[in-house]
């Protein structure tokens, strides 16, 4: 391979594109669209973040304004947590529109995350949202098809191919030249992403790492697309047939494939309804022990044990409020039961998602889509982390309140007492810390592996195409 020949081919291809008014207007459209999507997406993520910060501050103000109360009233007062918005949510919103963004934390139960943007949207939500990730995953390959379908097939159609090959350009050089021309066009479309990554770099190292993974993923995807298009264009008899073949692939990979895979994955692993989870939890708890039932065997034994431990005959004689201790034990059991059920639910969702990602072996677009969401921090793994973390916070907070209940009130006329509001300030309510990219490591590794295998395949295909072209 001679570098000068390849450079000449890339240069000629670019000249041809720049002279073509149709190509130029497509490129302008695409650039405007990409910039529009970046601007809109970043704006949207920012306003969502702002909304949630305002709500979190309001929830904090409500918490601080609590008067002297019985600690169990605070258990019922509860707390709200709003999911923070990830930096790259403006690039790939992932599940952001569809996942509940706030959770109400209270005693005796675990609540679902509610108020997703989709639940309050118009019928347009079926079309999805215009994000830079969508533009790069779906529209960029289409643009590359438009740019590249005629690259070698045109010469062949005009009968120039044999002439070109005879004039000294090796078939490998021709193919590699066309591939590089297409790839260079694709990489230009990644410039806004590069800018975002650089901006992230200034902010935090963790976001810079996410950005680097995103960049590598999209660059690999762009290379796969460019290689496949070059191959098809070099092998098919006419430009028209080349275009149709590329478009068929594109429709399968980018339009129909993901929906089909998702639909069948959700049918394969049935998830319970939320009411079923709540009822199952309540039934289970009734079975193991009902603290409200004076004859309940579990709590009768619990009482006997507690009294024996302190060597007293009546709960009134205990050095603390037995009512509060009952609450602690009850909350421990509630959390355990709910955790089991929620873990099962999340496992079903994770199984559905894993099924989709396994289908991605057939479709690099789906592999990139998974990698992009995970690296951006907007996939289900990150969302599930938020749900689990809010439960940890809920449990710690409720048990701290139950402890105040146990230690600072008395069993006699329990409910008529109040404790100082200063106690609420000391209750642990740590702010949610979004996880690092590591939380999605298995997904990232699998997706990266799929992309690498496809990249190798696509480059191998290029080689095969060059050989076949050489043989004529």
């Amino acid at each position, binding site marked *: 391979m001679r570098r000068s020949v390849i450079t000449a081919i890339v240069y000629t291809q670019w000249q041809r594109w720049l002279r073509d008014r*149709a190509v130029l207007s*497509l490129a302008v*459209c695409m650039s405007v669209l990409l910039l529009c999507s970046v601007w809109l997406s970043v704006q*949207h993520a920012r306003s969502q973040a702002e*909304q949630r910060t305002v709500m979190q501050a*309001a929830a904090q103000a409500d918490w601080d304004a609590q008067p002297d*109360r019985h600690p169990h*009233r605070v258990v019922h*007062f*509860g707390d*709200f947590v709003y999911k923070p918005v990830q930096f790259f949510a403006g690039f790939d919103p*992932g*599940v952001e529109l*569809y*996942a509940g963004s706030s959770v109400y934390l209270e005693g005796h139960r675990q609540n*679902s*995350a*509610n*108020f997703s943007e*989709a*639940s*309050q*949207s*118009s*019928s*347009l939500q*079926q*079309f999805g*949202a*215009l994000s830079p990730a969508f533009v790069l995953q779906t*529209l960029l390959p*289409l643009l590359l098809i*438009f740019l590249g*379908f005629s690259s070698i097939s045109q010469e062949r159609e005009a009968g120039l191919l044999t002439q070109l090959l005879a004039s000294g350009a090796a078939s490998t050089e021709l193919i590699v030249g066309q591939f590089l021309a297409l790839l260079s066009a694709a990489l230009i479309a990644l410039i806004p992403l590069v800018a975002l990554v650089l901006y992230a770099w200034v902010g935090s190292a963790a976001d810079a790492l996410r950005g680097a993974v995103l960049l590598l993923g999209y660059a690999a995807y762009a290379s796969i697309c460019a290689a496949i298009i070059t191959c098809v264009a070099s092998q098919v008899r006419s*430009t*028209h047939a080349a*275009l*149709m073949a590329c*478009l068929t692939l594109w*429709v399968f990979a980018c339009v*129909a494939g*993901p*929906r089909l895979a*998702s*639909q069948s*994955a*959700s*049918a394969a692993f*049935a*998830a319970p*309804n*939320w*009411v079923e*989870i*709540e009822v199952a939890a309540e039934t289970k708890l009734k079975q193991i022990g009902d603290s409200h039932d004076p004859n309940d065997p579990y709590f009768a034994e619990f009482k006997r044990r507690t009294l024996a431990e302190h060597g007293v005959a009546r709960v009134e004689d205990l050095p603390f409020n037995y009512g509060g201790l009952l609450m602690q034990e009850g909350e421990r059991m509630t959390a355990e039961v709910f955790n089991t059920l929620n873990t099962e639910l999340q496992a079903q*969702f994770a199984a*559905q*998602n894993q099924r989709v990602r396994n289908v991605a072996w057939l479709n690099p677009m789906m592999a990139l889509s998974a990698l992009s969401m995970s690296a951006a921090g907007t996939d*289900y793994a990150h969302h599930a982390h938020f749900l689990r973390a809010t439960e940890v916070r809920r449990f710690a907070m409720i048990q701290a309140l139950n402890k105040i209940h146990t230690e600072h009130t008395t069993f006699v006329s329990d*409910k008529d007492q109040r404790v100082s509001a200063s106690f609420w300030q000391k209750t642990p309510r740590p702010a949610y810390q979004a996880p690092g990219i590591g939380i999605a490591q298995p997904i990232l590794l699998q997706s990266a592996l799929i992309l690498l295998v496809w990249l190798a395949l696509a480059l191998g295909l290029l080689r095969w195409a060059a050989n076949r072209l050489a043989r004529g």
Partner: protein
Amino acid sequence: MLLRDRMCALALIFMFLCSAFAIHQGNQSIAKLSAERDRVSALLAAQNSDRANDIPEAGADAGDLAYYSFYAATDSSHAWSFIALGNRSFEPPVQRIRMLGLQGQLYDGQVQNPEISAVGSFDFAFIAVFLLPLLCIVLGHNVLSSERETGRLALLQACAKQLNTLALRRACVRAGCAFLAIFLPLLGFAIFKQLPALPLLYVMLALLAYTAFWTFAALWLAPAHRSSAVNAVRGLTLWTLLVLVLPQLGQMLINQLIPVPQGKQIALAHRQSVASAWDIPKHDSFKVFFGAHPEWQNTAPVLVRFHWKWYFAFHHAADMQLAKTVEDFEQRVRERQRAADALAFLSPSIALQAALEIIADSRIERVLAKRKAILEFHTQLRRYFYPYIFEERLMTQVDFLKAPKFNVALKR
């Protein structure tokens, strides 16, 4: 010529299969949601009948019964809902409602796999809105240009009048084929399942109009003097703009320009209102409650620390105080839908999606109607239990079992 015909035939067969498969998928999704609905309704009904069996002969405290009894509030679907799943893929098909403050429970249970929802559903509407135009472009982009490419155009051009007729006739035949490829599976399914005919007529008209638009768009963008490939690119560009870009851009703009912070505010304000009732004089909560229910004003006053009267009164007072925010919330959501419907004038794909979702009843209007029905049911439930609670009468098994049931169908 043969190759092209073979490609057309393949595209038509592919469309036929896609349509049949999407109908099957949509039908299965609706069946799954109905099954979920029936399962949960039966579960809650069984719980209530257990509770009824525990009521002693003399009756039980109505406050206890009201507090612990949940009723199923089901979402509705009908025979044609399978053509467009719309917001059914993330709206809970059934919720449970009890006599406590409604706004604290109305939005619960939005539990679904967000990665699945984010991709969009594979239903008939998807095939029609996204793939049917592609088929029209594939079939229509080379009606004339292929003639030039095979060298017969000059011959045809010799009689110009005939050329236009030929192009038109050929385009109509191809559009007809495209329409039949997507419509025949639907027709077959409708006959097989004996579905109501009127929605089928609407779907047919909508599909015909959509097919006509895309066939003529493809034809108009495909003059004889350009190559078939360039014509295909032109058609595809229009498709990308109208089917992908414009609706998505619209969605982003609408979400940005019409923010809906009220949902989260409702949850926070409801909690604050219910919790603060324990710290303010009971009289204050009763004052708000009696504003809506003066009939209970003269019942025995509450002098003890806790009484169900006061408990249910302050729960309803919280709902009353939130009425304005809830109205704003629904207003905003409606505004979003109105703005989206206005965009339908710019893109036939938005119009078709809207039409199919209206036929399938899979839009936000259904959710709002369901919430209204739940509100009415909740009111009935309260009114049924209040006499027992405020007059401090015990509730017998028979009385408990006669409590109103939720029926969304009555409210549509």
